[in-house]
Structures are given as structure tokens and as C-alpha cells.
């Protein structure tokens, strides 16, 4: 076993809030060894980021380190004067952050921002610094580094910015790299690139990485050892393989159970009841006891210690484990089960979108002449069946949200049809459209932006009913609202409250109730769980699923998360740069992807279980204002041929409801048509 590089002993960090001191980190011990990647996992608010910031003494103004020691090769960082600490930051311990678009200074060139680390921590000067900066950009895989050093952050895409952050962090060859959710703001294909890069650099430089993440898939991909944080404490640490084979703490187990997977399709996801406790409270027993199904009296009276499990390096904070290790998790690498509800394919089509286009003009010049079009949606056709879920999948910027909004005429379609209930919503005049709005509703991604903070929940729910004339009178609406709240699992007193009194998951329930209030037949779900933690996501997914079963609502489910598609959807359409490249049932598309982009997208998703060979996609999503000629995907496609540059390939039908737009399948079209 390699030697310990960084040791954290009994770290306690407090945040001074108006409501009292918040114990964000409360007695954390951990060890980071040379050349290892150590993952600190937990849901939002568990204290993992505060732990990282404490190590470098970079806490926000309200934060302070109350207790503890951080030993870097035996030297206590908390005992250092600030000036000496500055010599550690960036030189021995470097850090990269979640949001590359705000973490870089917008008015300095990227070269300058890398150079200042070199100048600060190495004897290099002048031209040598510039050369080194270029080398660094090269080494993090930024093409055309000589030109890029002179550019400003806003000229780079999110993935490139994160590479610049990494280059700056590595400039002084630190021994430890702290990466705080380094890929959370990035798309899955870009995430795969960045994770590759980190793994490669770590191997080359024998650097230790403290990886902070909420994504178990990333842990599985990157880490050698894992620690799980909950409510300011570490509840479990283990080697990666042990952790994934048999998570010991009930919370860790629940995290796995809450993940949507294809195997759980038929049923409900396991959820964690309740919420993370307030960290300004005093705890007597186990912090997870309130939410733990296995809790017994002792859990509430006595706080458990981290105890070492026999026969391994794992340690866990749970009374139950005194009786021995937990059993292995049910391995779940079985193939996709055949859809028991295949009959659903014969349900009538509820909404049919035909060749929908949404173009936004680019205006320039004094007279705001239109000089081009951003083809956000460029000829999308799809069909949603009654009571079924169609998932629309793609990376950010591919136009999937625009499709959803254009279907509801929240954005004006430029061309195409939206056939719904015998009318074309895309061309209906505003007055007639209003009468049809009842049938189609929407749920948004950000539960904090989707509810007016100035309206009581009752007014939120009543707004649509009043506007669209649902319910006979106010008393009828009151009765309906009570029923709605029960349907989404909220107590009746919710009505008199304001949105800010609720957590993200509860807000999303309110948003769902608002949509249900007008009894729609179709709900467009625009990434409704991507702002939520895994355990809360499970609750919302369960709710959506049971609502569909009970009320027969159809969903157009817009997401970038493949595992949700596997769990929830019946059919799927994959979008790339404003067009659908492949569609079919979930079993067909996810089990046997045909389009090279679908294959790559699927392979890039980090998996909790099992290994998957990843198809590396080079480059990034091109601009929809100026899409590549021919097949939009060809510049990134590993299977591209010169022919791909000619024309955009027509959709090829591969059986009932299944189609793909790729020249590779032209021959099969010929077969199927003959």
C-alpha cells in the first residue's frame, strides 16, 4: 500500500448563519494516498464541498474551521501562517471547480491565467512561461494551443474551459488535486473526455486526486477508494470494489437502490423517506436514523462510531455492522427484460409532430437585418401515444427543450405540424389555442424557477384552473386542489404556504400538481429530475410513473439521463443538433443502438455496474447556427465516410416505429423495402 500523502483528522467546519452556526463538516477523518483517486460521495448539502474548501482554507466569509488538522506529508496545514499556506495552494495542492464558466476570470486570457500559476510557483519567467503554458494546454488536449492561449474564456466551450482549469491546476505539478464535481456542468460525452483526461494525467504524474461527486457512476469509473458523506459526517469508507459489491451503510445501500435502472422498470424505485436533517441541530443518535428503515432504539439514543469491518479496509458508521458485514448487493447486469407491455405499442397516437422546425433569426447591424438562422429544431417528427412515455434524449443544445416548448406553442414554430386532438396546434390562432391548452401541460427542470415565489401554493394551483375554466366554482376548485395535493403526496396545509418553505423535491411535486390541475392528457416533462438528488429523483420518478398508471397521462420526457429513460420510457427518440437521428422502443434503441451517435452517447454514460467500452467522441457539439454540411454528426463520427459530407441522410425505417438517419443503413432500407 502506498504511503499516505494527505491526512484529515477530525475536521469540523462551521458556517455562521443568521439562524445559528451550521456544522457543515462535523468530524471528518480521511486519508489520501499517493497516486490514488479517492472519491468523496454524497448528496447536496452533505458537506463534501466544504470539506474540500477547508483543506485549502478557502472557505467563504461565513465559514470557519472550528477544529481539526490537515497533515500534508506530516505538516499541519492549519498551523501554517497564511503566507506559507499560499505557497501550498496551487503548488502542492491544487483545486478545480464545478462551474468552469464562472471559475475562470472573464477578462484575462487563458494563457495569462495559466501563466500566473507558473510565475507564482516556479522559477520560470518570460518566454519560458509562455512556452510552458502552451505545453500545458497541449497536454490537456486542447487543439491549436498556440492560438488558444491568446483567447478569453468566453470564446471557449464548457469542456475546453474545464480543460483550461485543469491545465492551470497542473501548472506547478501539485501532488494533490482536489476536483469538486469537475464534470457536473458538462454533457455526458464531454464528461467522458474530461474523466479520461484526469485518469490519464493521474497515471502519468502519480498525482493523488480527491474527487468530489454525487455520481456513483463516476466513482465506479475513477476511484480506488470511496467515502460516503451524510449530514457532515463520513458514514462509510471502503475500497471501490468492496463498496460496489457490498455497500455497508444503510444510506449507501439506499443510494444504490434509488438509482433508476432497466431492471426496476416494472416496479417502483426505492426511496429514502424524509429529508437531510438541519445541520444546526444537536444530534444525539445516528443522523440517518430518522430516515432509516432498519433503525432501532439504540440508533436514536447513541451516535455510532466509524467501526472497522473485519477482513478489509472498510469502515462504517452504523450500529448494525457490529453484527457483521452486510450481504452483497444484487448484481444487476442482466440484459434488458422484454417489455411486458409491448401491447402498448398499439395505443392510439395522442400527439403527432410532423417536420417541426423552430428557427431563431440572428439579427445584426443597425437595422437588425436577419443574417442567419439558429436552427434549434430542424425538422423533427415524433409521435406520443396515449398513456405512454416518449423520451427525447440528447445533449444540451441539441434542441430537445425547444421541441417541447414549441409543441405547447411557448415558442413559435417556424414550420411543421403538431397534430393533437384533431387540430394543428402549430397553426391555431391564439384565441383558439387557449381552449386547447388544458390538454397539454409542462413540468420544468428547475423547481426553484418554476414556482412564483410571491404566490401561495393555492394560487399556484388555482391559476391554471381559473384561466382555463376548470371546476364549477371556487369551492369546487378548493376540493380539486385538496385532491391534487393528495395525489402528489403533499399534506393539505401546503395550500396556504409559499414555495420557499419547501425543498426542491416538494416544489417539483407542487409543479406536477399544477400541471395536473387542468387534467391534461399529455405532460411535457423537461428534465424534471436533473436538478434533484438521486434519492429525491427516485421519489419524483415513482410519482410520475404511478400517475401515468392511474390517470393514463402520456409523457414527452425530455432528458439527457439514459438510466431514467431505461426506467421510465416506452419509446425513445435521440436528438442531435436539431434533428432526430434515431427512434424506436426503449428496448430496441438502448439494447441495440444503430446510429453511431446513439452508440457513443450510451457508451459515455458511466455505469455503476459492469464495464462498458467507451466510444470516444472527439470535439464538441457544433453550433446550430452553422451546422456541418451533410450529416451533422460526421465531424465527430468514428464511422464517417467522405459520403457523409454530401447530404443529410434520410430517415430509414427499420421495422415498426423504428428509424435511423444514417447512411450505414441505407442498404437495409433497400432490403426492407424490397
Amino acid at each position, binding site marked *: 500500500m502506498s504511503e499516505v500523502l494527505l491526512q484529515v483528522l477530525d475536521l469540523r467546519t462551521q458556517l455562521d448563519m443568521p439562524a445559528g452556526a451550521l456544522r457543515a463538516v462535523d468530524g471528518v477523518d480521511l486519508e489520501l494516498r499517493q497516486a490514488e483517486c479517492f472519491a468523496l460521495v454524497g448528496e447536496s448539502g452533505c458537506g463534501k464541498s466544504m470539506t474540500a474548501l477547508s483543506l485549502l482554507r478557502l472557505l467563504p466569509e461565513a465559514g470557519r474551521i472550528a477544529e481539526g488538522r490537515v497533515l500534508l506529508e506530516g505538516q499541519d496545514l492549519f498551523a501554517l501562517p497564511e503566507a506559507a499556506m499560499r505557497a501550498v495552494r496551487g503548488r502542492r495542492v491544487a483545486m478545480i471547480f464545478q462551474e468552469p464558466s464562472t471559475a475562470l476570470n472573464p477578462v484575462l486570457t487563458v494563457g495569462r491565467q495559466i501563466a500566473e500559476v507558473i510565475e507564482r510557483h516556479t522559477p520560470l519567467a518570460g518566454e519560458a512561461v509562455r512556452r510552458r503554458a502552451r505545453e500545458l494546454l497541449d497536454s490537456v488536449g486542447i487543439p491549436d494551443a498556440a492560438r488558444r492561449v491568446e483567447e478569453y474564456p468566453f470564446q471557449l466551450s464548457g469542456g475546453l474551459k474545464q480543460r483550461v482549469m485543469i491545465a492551470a491546476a497542473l501548472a506547478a505539478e501539485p501532488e494533490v488535486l482536489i476536483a469538486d464535481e469537475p464534470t457536473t456542468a458538462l454533457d455526458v460525452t464531454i464528461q467522458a473526455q474530461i474523466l479520461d483526461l484526469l485518469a490519464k494525467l493521474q497515471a502519468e504524474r502519480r498525482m493523488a486526486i480527491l474527487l468530489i461527486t454525487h455520481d456513483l457512476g463516476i466513482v465506479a469509473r475513477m476511484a480506488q477508494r470511496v467515502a460516503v458523506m451524510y449530514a457532515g459526517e463520513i458514514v462509510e469508507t471502503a475500497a471501490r470494489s468492496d463498496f460496489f459489491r457490498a455497500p455497508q451503510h444503510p444510506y449507501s445501500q439506499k443510494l444504490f437502490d434509488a438509482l433508476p435502472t432497466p431492471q426496476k422498470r416494472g416496479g417502483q424505485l426505492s426511496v429514502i423517506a424524509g429529508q437531510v436533517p438541519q445541520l444546526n441541530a444537536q444530534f444525539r443518535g445516528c443522523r440517518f436514523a430518522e430516515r432509516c428503515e432498519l433503525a432501532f432504539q439504540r440508533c436514536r439514543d447513541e451516535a455510532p462510531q466509524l467501526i472497522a469491518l473485519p477482513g478489509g479496509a472498510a469502515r462504517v458508521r452504523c450500529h448494525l455492522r457490529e453484527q457483521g458485514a452486510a450481504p452483497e448487493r444484487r448484481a444487476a447486469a442482466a440484459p434488458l427484460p422484454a417489455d411486458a407491455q409491448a401491447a402498448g405499442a398499439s395505443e392510439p397516437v395522442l400527439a403527432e409532430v410532423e417536420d417541426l422546425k423552430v428557427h431563431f433569426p440572428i439579427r445584426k447591424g443597425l437595422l437588425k437585418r436577419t443574417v442567419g438562422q439558429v436552427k434549434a429544431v430542424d425538422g423533427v417528427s415524433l409521435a406520443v401515444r396515449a398513456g405512454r412515455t416518449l423520451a427525447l434524449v440528447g445533449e444540451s443544445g441539441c434542441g430537445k427543450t425547444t421541441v417541447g*416548448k414549441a409543441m*405547447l406553442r*411557448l415558442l413559435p414554430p417556424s414550420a411543421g405540424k403538431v397534430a393533437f386532438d384533431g387540430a394543428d396546434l402549430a397553426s391555431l390562432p391564439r384565441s383558439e*389555442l*387557449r381552449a386547447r*391548452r388544458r390538454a*397539454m*401541460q*409542462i413540468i*420544468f*427542470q*428547475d423547481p426553484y*424557477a*418554476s*414556482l*412564483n*415565489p*410571491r*404566490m401561495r401554493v393555492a394560487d399556484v394551483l388555482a*391559476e*391554471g384552473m381559473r*384561466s*382555463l375554466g376548470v371546476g364549477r366554482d371556487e369551492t369546487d376548485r378548493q376540493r380539486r386542489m385538496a385532491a391534487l395535493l393528495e395525489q402528489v403526496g403533499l399534506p393539505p396545509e401546503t395550500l396556504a404556504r*409559499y414555495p420557499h418553505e419547501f425543498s426542491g423535491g416538494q416544489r417539483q411535486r407542487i*409543479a406536477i400538481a*399544477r*400541471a395536473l390541475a*387542468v387534467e391534461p392528457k399529455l405532460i411535457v416533462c423537461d428534465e424534471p429530475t436533473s436538478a434533484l438528488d438521486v434519492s429525491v429523483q427516485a421519489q419524483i420518478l415513482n410519482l410520475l410513473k404511478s400517475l401515468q398508471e392511474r390517470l393514463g397521462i402520456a409523457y414527452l420526457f425530455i432528458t439527457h439521463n439514459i438510466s431514467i429513460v431505461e426506467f421510465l420510457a416506452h419509446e425513445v427518440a435521440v436528438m442531435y443538433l436539431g434533428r432526430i437521428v434515431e427512434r424506436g422502443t426503449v428496448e430496441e434503441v438502448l439494447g441495440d443502438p444503430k446510429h453511431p451517435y446513439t452508440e457513443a452517447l450510451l457508451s459515455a454514460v458511466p455505469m455503476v455496474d459492469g464495464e462498458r467500452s467507451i466510444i470516444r467522441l472527439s470535439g464538441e457539439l457544433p453550433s446550430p447556427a452553422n451546422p456541418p454540411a451533410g450529416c451533422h454528426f460526421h465531424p465527430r463520427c468514428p464511422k464517417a465516410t467522405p459520403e457523409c459530407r454530401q447530404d443529410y441522410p434520410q430517415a430509414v425505417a427499420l421495422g415498426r416505429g423504428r428509424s435511423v438517419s444514417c447512411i450505414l443503413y441505407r442498404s437495409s432500407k433497400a432490403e426492407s423495402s424490397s
Partner: protein
Amino acid sequence: MLFPLASDYLVWLLVAALASFAYYCSRNPHLAAPWARVFRSRAAVASAVVLAFFVGVGLLDSVHYRPRLPATDPAAPPVYSVEVRSLLDLALTRLRTRLEITYSAPLATRLLQKERIERPDGTSVRDYPRLRFGGQHLKDEADLSQDVALRIVAGLALAAAVWSLVVLAGRRTLARRWPFVPWDAAAIALAALLALAGPVAMLAAGYHVLGTNQVGSDVLYQALKSIRISLVIGTLTTLVLLPLGIAAGITAGYFKGWLDDAVQYVYTTLNSIPGVLLIAASVLMVQVYIDTHPELFPTSAQRADFRLLSLCAILGAVDWTGLARLLRGETLKLAQLDYIEAAHAFGVSHVRILTRHILPNVTHIVVITLVLSFSGLVLAEAVLSYIGVGVDPSTISFGTMINAARLEMAREPMVWWSLAAAFVFMFALVLAANLFADAVRDGFDPRVRV
């Protein structure tokens, strides 16, 4: 006979509007909570007490009447003076009517300058003549310091008595109703205020506490009279500023397109004209109107009042651009938010979206802008009146006081009290307003830059 001026109506309208806004705030947690944060600040509570004093004086000065003239014939219908007075004038009758001949220093018993005095025996000497009113009650002028000390002590005793009464009465009710407010800060501010007001009141009964000006009028009286003008300018301006700023700002931000272009064009154009020049030109035009239409203004008070209101309107018409720009920006952001989209998905009308979704979410900006603009307007009045494009020269205001006194510093002996009085009163008012505004900004939204 009650004789309300146009500005009186507007002042009381504003009081009513503020009262209903306060009620509205108390019913809406999203407004009640920031106000609670504001009144958690000790500085805000203390300055609120000071502001309450100024507002009280200003409101007293906003009830005008025309006194009935003593009837020569009891049978004749009552005849009213053309002079318009206010309740404040009534309360300060002694200060108002006891005119000296010219300058006298604070608490003086004699004029500032020597004059030829006829002796009873027929000879005359040059000496400082006794004041007609100030210190007249003193038998021997040597008793002056003793009398002053006595009055101060009595004033302090009175202040202490009033203070104890208020604190005792207030502690129970207020502290129970709003336990989070630092009432001790209010008590301290009140104590300081009373400790000044008590002795001043006792002294004012016998002396000119702040001296007299060139025409022998009491400076304390002038300073107190100036308060209403400052408050009116600082608040009534909002009656013009608010509707313009809100309407232009949120419709431009919400509807975008040509409406936005038009609003932006108008406010860039207005903004381009240097504020003082625009105000000066407009006031000059108003003055031309007043001078050429004397028939519209039967009393001088009405003429002055018209000029005051015009000044408010002009200041409001110049100042709304700032609010409109802020609201436009915020509305642009809000209009992108999902809850607005959700409202569109329900087919909610534009008017309803503007009133139910946009307006409540920009209220904090409106409140902050108004509170922050108050002190600027008070300061602007002084400068504009100094240039001669402020209030009517016959109106007593801080600006006209300073204008009248600007050459007095060069006199020998120096006359400093008019300026000092204007300075102290203005400083207290503006400082209190600034501190309060700071707390309001912190309570509502510290990120808003106005």
C-alpha cells in the same frame, strides 16, 4: 377656514397610500419578511425615530387654513385672511410672530449691530439695542446664563418625563407585537431627540434659540418650516416617478420588440440631457407660465405651491428613467423564468401575468429605489433653490435659507447661525434617510445597485 393646498391633498393621499402599502406588506410574507429584516437593524430603528420626528413636523405643516379676521361688524359674513397658515404655524405662533429688527445671535438679548439709541433723557448713544422679544423677560441681562441653565435643566426634566412615559407605555405593547425589533436603539434615539427638543422648547419660549436672520425672523422657525418642503420634494416626486418608471420598465421588458425600442429610446434621450439643465429649463418654463397666468393663483401660497408641485413633477419626469432601466432589466430576466412559461401554458392573459407574476417580483426594486432616491431629492432641492430653479423664492426651504445666508459668512461679525441651522437639520434628515435606506436595501436585496 380649512384651506388645503394642492400639495396637502397629495401629501395626505401619499400617507393613505403608504398606510395601505404597509397593510399590504403585513399580509404578504415576501414583503413582511424583508421589512422585519430592515427593522432588525439598530441603525434603521434609530433613524426611523429621527425620521418620524421630521415626518411629524411635516404633517403638522400640511394642514393649512386661513385665519378668520376679527370682524368689525358682527352681522357681516366672516372674513378670512389672505394669508395661509398651517397647524405648525399655529403651534409656533410665538416663534413666528416675534420678529426682531435684524440679525441677532442665538440666545442673544441684543441685536448684532450697534444702532443709535435714543435715551429717555433725549441724548442718543450708539449701542447694541435690546431685542424686542429675545430675553425680554429678564430683569437683568446678567441673569442670562443662569436663566438659560435653568431652562435647559427644566427642558431635560421635561424630556426625561416624556421619555419615561413613552418607554413605559411602549415597552409592553410594541415589544410584544414586534419582539425582534431592537427597541433599545429606538429608546436611545428617542432619548437623544427629546434631550435636544426639551431644552430647545423651553429656551424657545423666551429666546431665539438659533438667532434671527436679516429681517429679524426666528431661524429655528425657518428651519422647522423647511422640513415640509424637503419631505414633499423627497416623497411627492414618487407620485410621478412610480407610474412612469413601472409602466415603462415592465412593459418594455415583458413585451420586448418595438415597445422596448421605443422605451429605451425615450429614456436614453431624456438621460442624455444633463439633469440640472433639464430641470432648470423646465422650471424656467413653469415660471413663465405662472407669471403670465396670475389669475390662476389668487394667493401667494397657491402660487408657491404650484411651483413646488411642478418641481416635484419635473424631478419625477427626469428621474423615472433610472427606475425604468432597472425594472426593464429585471423583467427581461423574469420573463424567461419557468413560472412565466407555465402561466403561458395555461393561457393566462398578459395583463394578469404582468400584475400577478412580474409586478410582485419587482416590488423590492421599487421600494429600494424610492427609499434611496429620497435623500438625493432632498439634497437636490437645496442646490436647485440655490441656483434659483428650485422652490418659489418666497417659500422657506433649506435651499432658500442657504441662498439667503450665503454672503453672511463674509460679514463682520460673522453670521453663522442660519447656515448652521440649515446644515444641522438637513444633515440629520439626510443622514437618517441614508442609514434607513441602507438598511432597506440590505433587507430587501443587497445586490440591487441603484
